[in-house]
């Protein structure tokens, strides 16, 4: 399969990214296991390598708090300001070394290595430069398709000691060895249900899937799994940088830091979530025609009365104007609010999204006034430059008392001048 003109992809993936970020500015924790908690310190969303044997993903913090203490595992609230900045540094370094890079998630990116004479050496260079410049360890998987690169990366991590964190599967021998020694459930894009189907057909390893007939996979399941099988056998079906289509709905929902019983703070929360949702809306350059707002109480405590209700509001015209959207959402939540409950969560969802030009500019339809679009552009420019929330609707408080619980959050070492890392010169 490996012809000279075959493309070469690399997947660069940060090891235990959130935990690694915390360690950059806490060298004292270099050998201490770390877990990172979800918003509101709810459950475990990331673990350092040495915490993995002791803690499962998704375990609720309140249940494992004592166990963590006994084991000497340190817990952090998620610090997305830090992780976002460190991610940008890692991605910029990759982009400075390679011409075509697709940032796939906060801690992974695909890069095009086609035409590079020694791809493995490039992988090692990437690894050592990122480690030196950021302190974040990465694994690099290299292969002729994205799916194989992902598998190579997985192998690099699994066999860290043997591979030094870089695995190149461009050679048939290496590729076949890994395919034979990887369960089909470990293949990129094969979920639990698909695994069960495939195993039922006798497809148990990645090699079995690579050798399966792609056409019958397509007929039986989908074009997605067909592509996966073709990619495993070495035919590239996925290209770099296939941009995601704009989202069909945008949601912003969060637990309150404490239970709320009054309407006023709930309105503040809804306005805050709408501010964020409308930023996402404008970032993908869509307009929305409908807004759904919902609130609910906690659902698990048997002693508390339960209540959940949502309402959909249709807007006068497709819009991305945060002022109009906030007014609609705040009015809507007043309709579903019932006194006497202890609310734990609100959600704002933007529905019926359209791209400009997609909705008919019919003669009698009302459109968003041009001046509103200009105001939004100025708003986004100011907040882009001076930080989110610098300019906001009056209904959005600066420091809400219902805000997220983040009791174990590290400093914003790289994004706040008042929280910089302190280095002793005593």
């Amino acid at each position, binding site marked *: 399969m490996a012809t000279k003109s075959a493309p070469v992809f690399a997947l660069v993936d940060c090891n235990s990214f959130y935990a690694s970020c915390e360690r950059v500015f806490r*060298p*004292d924790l*270099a050998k201490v296991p770390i877990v990172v908690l979800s918003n509101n310190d709810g459950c475990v969303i990331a673990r350092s390598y040495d915490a993995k044997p002791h803690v499962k993903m998704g375990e609720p913090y309140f249940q494992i708090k004592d166990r963590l203490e006994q084991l000497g595992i340190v817990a952090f609230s998620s610090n*997305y*300001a830090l*992780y*976002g*900045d460190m*991610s*940008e*540094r*890692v991605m*910029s*370094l990759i982009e*400075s070394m390679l011409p075509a890079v697709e940032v796939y*998630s*906060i801690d992974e990116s695909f890069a095009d290595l086609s035409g590079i004479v020694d791809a493995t050496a490039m992988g090692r260079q990437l690894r050592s*430069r990122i480690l*030196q*410049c*950021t*302190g974040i360890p990465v694994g690099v998987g290299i292969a002729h398709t994205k799916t194989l690169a992902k598998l190579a990366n997985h192998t690099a991590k699994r066999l860290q000691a043997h591979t030094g964190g870089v695995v190149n599967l461009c050679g048939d021998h290496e590729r076949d060895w890994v395919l034979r020694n990887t369960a089909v459930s470990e293949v990129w894009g094969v979920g639990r249900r698909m695994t069960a189907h495939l195993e039922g057909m006798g497809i148990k390893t990645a090699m079995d899937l690579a050798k399966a007939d792609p056409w019958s996979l397509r007929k039986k399941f989908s074009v997605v799994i067909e592509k996966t099988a073709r990619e495993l056998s070495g035919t590239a079906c996925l290209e770099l940088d296939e941009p995601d289509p704009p989202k069909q709905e945008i949601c912003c929902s969060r637990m309150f830091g404490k239970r709320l019983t009054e309407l006023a703070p709930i309105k503040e929360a809804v306005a805050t979530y709408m501010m964020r949702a409308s930023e996402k809306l404008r970032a993908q350059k869509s307009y929305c025609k409908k807004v759904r707002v919902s609130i609910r109480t906690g659902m698990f405590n048997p002693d508390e009365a339960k209540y959940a209700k949502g309402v959909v509001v249709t807007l006068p015209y497709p819009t991305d104007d945060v002022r109009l959207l906030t007014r609609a959402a705040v009015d809507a939540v007043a309709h579903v609010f019932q006194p006497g409950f202890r609310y734990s969560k609100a959600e704002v969802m933007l529905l019926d999204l359209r791209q400009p030009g997609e909705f008919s500019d019919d003669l009698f339809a009302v459109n968003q006034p041009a001046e509103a679009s200009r105001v939004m552009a100025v708003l986004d420019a100011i907040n*882009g*430059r*001076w*930080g*989110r929330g610098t300019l906001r609707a009056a209904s959005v408080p600066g420091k809400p008392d219902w805000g997220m619980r983040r009791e174990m959050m590290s400093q914003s070492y*790289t*994004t*706040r*001048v008042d929280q*910089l*890392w*302190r*280095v*002793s*010169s*005593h």
Partner: protein
Amino acid sequence: MSFTSLGPIAADGVRLPLCSFKVPAGFPSPAADHIEKEISLDELLGIRAPHVYLVRIDGDSMQGVGIYSGDLAVVDRAIEPGHGHVVVALLNNDPICKRLCLRGKSVVLQSENPKYPDRYVLEGDELTVWGVITYTVRSHGH
């Protein structure tokens, strides 16, 4: 997975125009053709580079080279550390700011203040250079 990046400290730093004029109506400024670029402290100090970090210095052992407690230091992690560099080092995992000196076979973390003795890095010590200090910034009160 969706994530939110707050981005760097500011999108791009404060730019000071090299020259600025009020242009009287009707008279083109004779200097307009000579405006070359803007001065940016961000660019000068290189703090937008992915391998550069700002840290705060705490202590007076580097006063001799003008690094005082409370100063901001620009730390470059891409520079290969060498003899004579002022560095942020991790000595047994404690971050400290000192001058890195290689004396024969020994490695010394040297202070720039007679009150502080040199610290020889011994066999049982673990030393990592976190980054090299390229600039420091101090506020003079106003």
